[in-house]
């Protein structure tokens, strides 16, 4: 199955004429949707049956039975889908690429010492440091400034919109922006056109220029995450108690001082949560690099290298080791968010 990912599927649809295609498309649609309806019918039917049967139970087994029915499926899915695989991936990371023998920590040695991976780790660190900070800063700027504009909802919606677009779609949008041609010809990429108009007559081929290309790829993530930061931070600003701001204003604070001494401290925890959340997204990002460069031209990052090792080269040992490294890297970030939650729960 996965071996076929990078080859064209042999099973094709006739590419002759439209009427024929419309028919085959309709048959395709009907066939696929009968699968969906069958799956939903089985799922809901089984659920109704269990609810009906378990709902009639009486006596001292009623409670444990209800707990098992309500919680059982979720716990089973979590074990099969997350708990056991996590243990197994850790185990596979200690074995050779074909999982035939134990090789100890050699996969980790490879991950931290081999020169091509070195570039990957450096890029990943650059991503984590730059992209979340810029996305959060831009989001905060918009959250602070947008409310004074008439029809602010329009601006907010437009800045928020990229959040609904897939990373693959976003990458195609920006790949087109970064399109570069021989400066002698008319440009079709927006970025080249703009810099030429501004007087830079021989702009580089953006995507091929390392280390600039890393930053150009980060722009895509920043473009999608700024709206997220804006929405969450705007809500936090709106939640600052009125008397606090009023008191500060009575004391003569305004502009930058009000921001620095009142607004920022009051939304500090939200600011950090936004930052860590975008960092987690950044660490796991692989769609952007995969669509833009496939990891070439010095742009590879950890999550995409993990995918390539695992499912392109089928090096399960190395792929698993990279997954474990990714896991360990996100652990403190998510851990921080969990501590935030615990504190919040205890104050409730």
């Amino acid at each position, binding site marked *: 199955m996965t071996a076929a990912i990078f080859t064209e599927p042999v099973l094709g649809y006739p590419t002759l004429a439209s009427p024929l295609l419309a028919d085959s498309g309709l048959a395709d649609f009907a066939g696929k949707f009968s*699968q969906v309806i069958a799956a939903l019918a089985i799922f809901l039917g089984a659920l109704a049956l269990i609810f009906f049967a378990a709902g009639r139970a009486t006596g001292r087994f009623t409670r444990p039975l209800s707990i098992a029915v309500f919680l059982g499926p979720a716990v089973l899915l979590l074990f099969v889908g997350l708990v056991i695989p996590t243990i197994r991936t850790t185990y596979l990371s200690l074995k050779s690429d074909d999982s035939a023998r134990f090789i100890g920590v050699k996969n980790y040695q490879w991950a931290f010492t081999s020169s091509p991976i070195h570039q990957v780790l450096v890029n990943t660190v650059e991503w984590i440091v730059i992209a979340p900070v810029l996305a959060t800063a831009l989001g905060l700027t918009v959250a602070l400034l947008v409310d004074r504009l008439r029809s602010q909802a329009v601006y907010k919606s437009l800045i928020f*919109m990229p959040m609904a677009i897939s990373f693959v779609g976003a990458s195609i*949008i920006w790949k087109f922006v970064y399109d570069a041609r021989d400066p002698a010809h008319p440009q079709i990429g927006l970025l080249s056109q703009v810099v030429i108009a501004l007087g830079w007559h021989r702009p580089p081929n953006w995507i091929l220029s390392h280390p600039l290309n890393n930053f150009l790829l980060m722009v895509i993530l920043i473009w999608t995450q700024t709206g997220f930061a804006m929405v969450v931070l705007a809500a936090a600003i709106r939640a600052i108690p009125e008397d606090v701001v009023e008191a500060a204003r009575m004391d003569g604070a305004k502009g930058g001082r009000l921001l620095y001494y009142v607004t920022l401290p009051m939304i500090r925890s939200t600011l950090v949560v936004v930052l860590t959340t975008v960092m987690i997204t950044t660490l796991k990002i692989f769609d952007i690099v995969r669509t833009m460069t496939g990891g070439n031209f010095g742009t590879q990052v950890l999550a995409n290298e993990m995918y390539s090792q695992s499912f392109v080269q089928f090096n399960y040992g190395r792929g698993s080791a990279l997954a474990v490294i990714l896991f360990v890297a996100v652990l403190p970030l998510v851990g921080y968010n969990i501590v935030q939650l615990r504190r919040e729960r205890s104050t409730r």
Partner: protein
Amino acid sequence: MSNPAVEVTVPLANRPERAATAVRRSFSSPIASLLIIVLTVLWTLPTVGLLVTSFRPAGQVAATGWWTVFTHPSLTLSNYHTVLFVGGYGVNNGLLPYLVNSLAITIPGTLFPLIIASMAAYALAWVRFRGSDVIFFGVFALQVVPIQMALIPLLQLYSGGAHLGRVTIFPDLNLTGTYWPVWLSHTMFAMPLAIFLLHNFIAQLPREVMEAATVDGASHFKIFRSIVLPLAAPALASFAIFQFLWVWNDLLVGLTFAGGTPEVAPLIARLNQVSGSFGSHWELLTAGAFISMIVPLIVFFSLQRYFVRGLLAGSVKG
């Protein structure tokens, strides 16, 4: 409620707007307004370029920038016809079957986790038992596990079953080539966040209503069906929108568990594949990308309020 972390958990309550307005007004200047307008234009222009290009004839797309369309308008729908039904340039067929796959993956991929997680959330919130707190934090803690940790073992499970030594624990169900691996994976991966979000909401339903129903002799199953689900509808809607967009826009799960075949692969996975083959045929790539964006954009713009609510509940708390 003096902790700012708590304050942000009720962001949509109708607080007096004046405080916030006061904060913002103190930054008031025409430069600030200009900055926002410039930023919005920058944020929107790339998408406009994509949309315009997808309607331009191939020859013009290759020869001139999309911005020239405003002085020399010339539009066509043929790119959409080609990219949906025909393909070309090394791409065997159109995107239509993949668009159907995306729908076929996303609907159960949203409904399965929604139902299973709301059941678990109800049990954790209202059927208190010894260990329910441990399970709740265990579920929440599982959010730390990146999907990447689960890919190889799950792929092996779907394609060969599970074995311990020579003992088969789980038979090979021969699921490859069906939607099941993708549906199951999306359901599994959605669990931690879904249970957490829905638990927060369901736990806050009025205690009197629950107790009255119990006194009347209603079983947990009846309470769940006739009280919890209707009352939790806003939270269910928020999560459903979130999950819908997540599954529709996903690449990692689709690419790993559905491959690239027209039988099961979703549109996004296919788009990622053809982005190389279509190469410089921007009129096709932009049309394909826009097709993949229409559904999420409609969902987003029509249900933005629910989307924001889910986002705030999930990210600020998590």
